[in-house]
């Protein structure tokens, strides 16, 4: 393979940063959540890249676990968002600010 590992790591970093920007700028709870998924995926990319770098499969196992976690998070997250929506009829996170100051 000719592509340096660092390229993959940097790509993961860029995607992670973009995910972060998504968390920070989107008001839709679902989209924020999707951005977090993007971040987790970016990390997976890094893990797999490192796995390749070290000539090991451990990294891939880690990525596998990370996917499981992501799946579980999705369940909980979506449940919370649905619950919120039921109560408030909106999933605009900027509206959820009764708790402040």
């Amino acid at each position, binding site marked *: 393979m000719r592509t340096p590992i660092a390229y993959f790591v940097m790509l993961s970093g860029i995607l992670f940063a973009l995910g*972060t920007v998504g*968390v*920070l*700028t989107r*008001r839709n709870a679902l989209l*924020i959540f999707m951005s977090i998924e993007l971040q987790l995926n970016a990390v997976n990319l890094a893990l797999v890249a490192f796995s390749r770098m070290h000539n090991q499969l451990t990294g891939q196992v880690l990525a596998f676990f990370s996917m499981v976690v992501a799946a579980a998070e999705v369940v909980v997250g979506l449940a919370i968002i649905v619950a919120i929506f039921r109560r408030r009829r909106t999933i605009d*996170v*900027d509206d*959820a*600010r*009764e*708790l*402040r*100051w």
Partner: protein
Amino acid sequence: MVAAELVPQEAIGRASLLWLIPALPLLGAAIDLFVGRRLGRWAGWLATALVAASFLISIGVVTQLLDLPDEERLVVQHLFDWISVGDFRVGMDLRLDAVSATMILVVTGVGSLIHLYSIGYMRDDPRFGRYFAYLNLFVFFMLMLVLGANYLVLYLGWEGVGACSYLLIGFWFEEVANTEAAKKAFITTRIGDSLLLIGLATIVFKFGTLDYGEVFTGAPAVLTESAATVIALLLLAGAIGKSAQLPLHVWLPDAMAGPTPVSALIHAATMVTAGVYLVIRSVPIFELSPVALDVVAWVGILTVLFGGICALAQWDIKRVLAYSTISQLGFMFLAVGLGAYAPALFFLVAHAFYKALLFLGAGSVIHGMEGEQDLRRMGGLGRRMPWTAFTMGIGALALAGFPFLAGFFAKDIVLEIANTNERWGFYVFGSIGALLSALYVSRLWFLTFVGRPRSEAAEHAHESESLMVVPLAVLGVGAALGGVLSLGPHGWISRFVEPLVGLVPEGEEGIPGPAFLVIAVGITFAGLLVAWWVYASGRVDWHRLRERLEPLPRAALHGWYVDRAYDAVIVQPAKALAGITANVVDAKGIDGLVNAIGGGTRRLARSGRLLQTGFVRSYALVVFAGAVAVLLYVGSRL
């Protein structure tokens, strides 16, 4: 020329009763204080009896002293260690020597007479018992002052008499003026006392002790002239305050607010003379500093003139006497300053008699006039109060320096010593002072007892009860005959005291002896005659005369406005300063800073809590910013 410090003798025989002399009045004070109300009139008799007992013991002790040879006339009784820290010890020690012997006789003698007088004078006072408690307490402290064998016991008495003076001046505390006067007396003297305290600290620094014996023995070796000057001046400051000398004299005229017997005892006979006593006591130190002695003399002479002029302008009978006291104390200071310690002590004794007499007489007048004190409303009382008039006449003549009465000898010796070529200034001013004394005292007597009654009260005045008159008579005898103690510069009292304080310095005579005597007597008669001419002859309208001399009499009446000057220059600025310190520097400045720190934190918190906007995205932003910051740090470590 100072004699060496004597060798102290043990207190044996009658002298072992020395401690009883102060103890008895203290006992009286305690009893009268706690159960005085239940004792009723007996409170007064008890107090009087105890002071009289002290007087008797004093006589017994002093006679024993007299039996000893000159160089052994020093008895020290150690009661207990008052302070003992490290090598610094202060004993509660009593010291009987010629000087203190003289003083205790005066204090207990005059004191018991005034106690007796007070029984009558204070008869109707609701706080009769308490009055005598205070009076006894005063005698106790005064005796401690003079009997103390070290400066700290002296200071104990010194402050104690001040406190008693405070209590007694403000005895009728319902009147604000009285309490003001009491406070003024205490505080003004305390200014002097504080300097005295520094003086004591200096003595401790130089000698490591406050014991008279050690200090006096060591003084010539330990003290340089400048050190001696410093200590002497600090002691003098205390003396000036207590003896109401310029510039701390302002409290004494006001102190007349107290009951008149108090003025007689404290503010004429005893307490105010403590300053003179202190200087005489400290002769070994003063002798080392000619400068200090000069200062003493100058303070004395200035006070003589100042007091005399002010006394001349007063309308209040007691204020005349108060200024007179100031002036007379000036004479004593003058004497001390000139090195005439023994004569000064004699002056003190003589003054105690005639001034106590004058005060008690004035008290009798006031009593007879139902509390009136204004000379302008008196007149012609001589017929209604003959005993008072007579005895006061003796006192007045004595003060004026009428030949062969006590005051004559006293003043005469002082002027005689001043009568040298180098010191002719003191002589001249002293003579003027003598003239003023004669003038104001005869003015007082004439205005009070001669002429027509100038008020309703004066017409109905009555002689006081015998309880009050007897002491007058006894004091009258003393004032008249006190001179026998000191006939000439080498009288009895001088011989008694000189082993301790040294001889009267001899100087080259200025005005020859006979001429001097003529001048002295002439001055007295001149004063009496002028006063008679103005106030008693009826040929002069003294009101008009006074008006013509304005504004001088008014200025003199108000003590040359020294009070007002002090108020404007010291008291008011000090109050303002205190106000600024407490309300601005402390409240706004220091505490303001404290509150600002607190308030600043709270403001910070109040604005800081707004960071917690409730927007989850803001929170995420902060987290991310933190992450970037952490990475930035990591980057810096690469």
